[in-house]
């Protein structure tokens, strides 16, 4: 019988290789339909009317004029009079009409009276936020105060990162279509299996089984697309009222205002060490905003480098900047900026290379200490750190200053619950079905590779069915949990199906099922390639009875997967001290994630995370006007994303092989996006000799820091 455990990677023909993503041709030919692209017969277009105020009470809504507009077929109140709206862009009314233009015209005729309420859109100073604060955590371990008093070197600083948005290129939204009591949702979602239950709970349908969610591909989520959302419910209701399918996608401004905001985090930090760099104490007062209801939780500082003696306190600032949603590695990039910046400042104060300071204290990183040490060493080699690094402040003449910075990070990434059905047909065809989704991470490809590897078939011989809630239930794609979940369930299902086939085939090879293996498109006796049957002939022995086997990610510990990764990154920057412009010349990432199934898409995940990291380090910020409470950059001209020419070289090295592969599959989506902010901020400090306290490192902040710090 085939063993479900992972084969050694040197025995694999597909696992661990660089394989192009299965849906690549669908995407690069433009043929695949995203939710936004679905056009159903007789479909209407929905538009939302949203609050222009950051905080207000809806007093009254008059839709009578709008309902008389040409083409209008249905109206749905999303925020009833008497209820409050908590940010600009908060949805109030939805309307559906024959054409997008008619829906837009009609939306303008909806009259909403608001009672404006006080708002707060600044998270800069909790002491000025009055009652809009909530103390979330206070924790003291050991003797931080005493240790900091007695420390030979103490560094103090203030660090942080602003609120940013998810800015998915495919806006949030869906097409809803009814057939009697049954509802099909073509939804751009990270949670295909979870949406039906949510719609049933909201009484959109009488039971969850009446909903089918279809998401073959989706245009980015990054943590902001887990729920059906109010616009999903409204879209389904509009479609019901009109008796016709409705497409309702957010327009770009509302997407940036209302579809997710990454919580900010700032901290005043005091960190102490001996002269040799040994860390002895940490104290931090942190704050940040997770929207009006203080979502996002409290940070666990210091990050990764767990200084035993610490005192931490966190205050949530309740603001109307926007709704907090999980953003790729929730809280980690923010905690990382605070911690790694403080440690780099401390190293500078001691006059120590930060690489040496991190290695000196590596045991404080805990179980992964050896991994971090190896990753820092590898990153240093790829960056040529020892040759390039200089003490704070580039002494080279001219306005352009160069510098290096580093950071380390962690993430869990244990697989989520996952179920897979694998079917082998008598004609030899193989398919696997899971109610999972591919956000662009390579999930579909990973599932295909594992199935094909298990069956000893080429990747093209396997059909992967995902993105449909009628397939076996799978978890939401968040927290880097998908690859572990689907890898385990798929491997188990495929192995179980194969074993049923081996039992059928064994007699014709005069062998026991235990002696058989599936390799190179054949079922053969182990170690005896001459005793073999081609795959198709073997499957023909099934007669008229296909095989279906189920696989499930095991509860608790599952020996195909695990969790907990490290990762080290190093940045090299050039800073123009006359304009304040920062350019990332080179970024190096060394990343572990256990057993890599597809090296190509895994590397792409890391490349992408680094570029996303450069973007949030240098450009991204949700800019709010304190007077009006409005977002000043709810468009792509001023909500800046890095372009193809906005950075230099990127080097990615995946830690694989002995010591890594046997840990099984671990998620990769989050970890590499954690460190860029800290590594780049540290590199800028190293270049110009002063700390720019918060990211994004925009030219105004760089110039202000230079003026304050008076660099040589």
């Amino acid at each position, binding site marked *: 019988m085939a063993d479900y455990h992972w084969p050694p990677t040197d025995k694999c023909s597909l696992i661990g290789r660089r394989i192009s993503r299965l849906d690549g041709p669908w995407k*690069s030919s433009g043929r695949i339909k995203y939710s936004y692209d679905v056009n159903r017969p007789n479909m209407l277009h929905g538009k939302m009317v949203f609050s222009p105020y950051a905080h207000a009470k809806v007093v009254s809504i008059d839709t009578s004029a709008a309902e008389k507009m040409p083409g209008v077929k249905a109206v749905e109140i999303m925020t009833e009079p008497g209820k409050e709206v908590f940010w600009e862009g908060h949805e109030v009314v939805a309307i559906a009409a024959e054409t997008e233009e008619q829906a837009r015209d009609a939306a303008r005729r909806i009259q909403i009276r608001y009672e404006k309420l006080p708002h707060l859109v600044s998270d800069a100073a909790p002491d000025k936020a009055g009652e809009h604060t909530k103390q979330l955590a206070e924790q003291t371990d050991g003797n931080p105060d005493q240790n900091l008093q007695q420390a030979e070197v103490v560094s103090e600083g203030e660090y942080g990162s602003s609120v940013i948005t998810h800015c998915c290129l495919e806006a949030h939204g869906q097409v809803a279509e009814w057939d009697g009591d049954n509802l099909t949702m073509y939804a751009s979602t990270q949670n295909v299996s979870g949406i039906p239950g949510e719609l049933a709970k909201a009484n959109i349908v009488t039971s969850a089984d009446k909903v089918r969610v279809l998401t073959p591909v989706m245009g980015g989520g990054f943590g902001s697309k887990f729920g059906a959302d109010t616009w999903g419910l409204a879209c389904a209701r509009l479609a019901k009222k009109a008796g016709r399918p409705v497409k309702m996608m957010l327009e770009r401004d509302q997407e940036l205002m209302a579809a997710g905001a990454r919580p900010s985090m700032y901290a005043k930090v005091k960190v102490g060490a001996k002269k040799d760099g040994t860390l002895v104490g940490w104290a931090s007062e942190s704050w940040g905003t997770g929207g009006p209801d203080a979502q996002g939780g409290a940070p666990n500082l210091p990050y990764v480098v767990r200084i035993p003696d610490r005192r931490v306190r966190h205050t949530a600032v309740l603001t109307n900047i926007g709704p907090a949603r999980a953003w790729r590695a929730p809280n980690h990039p923010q905690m990382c900026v605070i911690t790694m910046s403080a440690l780099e400042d401390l190293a500078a104060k001691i006059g120590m290379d930060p690489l040496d300071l991190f290695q000196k204290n590596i045991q404080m990183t805990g179980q992964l200490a050896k991994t971090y040490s190896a990753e820092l060493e590898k990153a240093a080699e790829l960056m040529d750190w020892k040759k390039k690094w200089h003490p704070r402040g580039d002494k080279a003449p001219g306005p352009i200053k160069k510098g290096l910075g580093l950071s380390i990070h962690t993430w869990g990434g244990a697989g989520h619950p996952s179920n897979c059905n694998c079917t082998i047909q008598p004609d030899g065809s193989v398919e696997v079905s899971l109610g999972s989704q591919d956000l662009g991470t390579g999930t579909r490809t990973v599932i295909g590779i594992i199935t094909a590897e298990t069956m000893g078939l080429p990747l093209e011989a396997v059909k992967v069915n995902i993105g449909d809630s009628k397939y076996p239930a799978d978890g939401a794609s968040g927290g880097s949990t998908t690859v572990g979940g689907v890898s385990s369930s798929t491997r188990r299902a495929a192995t179980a199906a194969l074993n049923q086939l081996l039992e059928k085939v064994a007699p014709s090879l005069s062998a026991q099922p235990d002696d058989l293996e599936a390799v190179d498109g054949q079922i053969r006796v182990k170690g005896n390639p001459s005793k073999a049957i081609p795959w198709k002939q073997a499957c023909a022995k099934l007669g008229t009875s296909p095989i279906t086997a189920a696989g499930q990610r095991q509860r608790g510990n599952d020996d195909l997967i695990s969790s907990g990764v490290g990762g080290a990154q190093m940045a090299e920057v050039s800073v123009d001290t006359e304009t304040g412009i920062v350019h990332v010349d080179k970024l190096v990432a060394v990343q572990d994630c256990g057993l890599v199934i597809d090296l190509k*898409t895994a590397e792409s995940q890391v490349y992408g995370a680094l570029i996303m990291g450069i973007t949030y380090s240098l450009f991204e910020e949700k800019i709010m006007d304190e007077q009006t409470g409005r977002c000043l950059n709810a468009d792509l001209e001023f909500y800046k994303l890095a*372009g193809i020419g906005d950075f230099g070289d990127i080097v990615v090295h995946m830690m694989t092989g002995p010591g890594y592969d046997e840990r099984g599959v671990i998620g990769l989506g989050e970890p590499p996006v954690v460190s860029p902010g800290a590594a780049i901020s540290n590199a800028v400090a190293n270049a110009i000799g002063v700390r720019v306290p918060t990211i994004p490192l925009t030219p105004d902040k760089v110039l202000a820091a230079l003026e304050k710090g008076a660099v040589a």
Partner: protein
Amino acid sequence: MTKQNDPKDPEHSSKEENKKKGGLRRRDFVKLVGGTGVAATAQALAGHTLASAATTMPEVVGSGKVIGPGPVAMTLRINGEAKKLAVEPRVTLLDALRNHLDLTAAKKVCDRGTCGACTIIVNGKPVYSCSVLAIDVADHDGKPGADIRTIEGLAPEGKLHAVSASFVDNDAQQCGFCTPGFVMSCKAYLDSHRNPTVEEVKQALGGNLCRCGTYLGVRNAVVQAAMTMKGGRA
């Protein structure tokens, strides 16, 4: 905190000033905005004020004939085929393609000429189709309209153009929502630049944005596609 009666507050633009401008939507908006705690507004969806102007001001074209604001019959020359449709004069080429012809590869992302996800090729040049009105590229006065090429016309279904194939090979796509726009920008660029360097590619594709961060793959894909296209495979 909110301040009342702040003259700098955009909600308090004077009624007089807006009467002069004469824009119906703007005036409605201002008329209904109160200066006290209770305010009302006819909602405007930001970013589409230009389109609304078209509904109140009939468009006059070359022949002197007044057309619109209702749907106008027109013919677009797309991928070598004449496509007939009837859309309002304010409808963008992007919306005409996506909503009326089911050619949905060109994506709507920023809808205002910034991100490049809607890039198609018109008369041999890459354009943001969100920033072109369909009527402006349609047949006109008996003369054929512009030559419009979308990614759907690059290769027959089931086949890949060299540029698309190089995007697959170099994994120059993740979620893939920006990819059709990138492929079309790349195709238009390579049609006139046979030997691009990576530095040139950084300039040439600066008008397309990706959120997943696939730019490294794109840089390599363009260079590979250039080699393939020179080799006569496309």
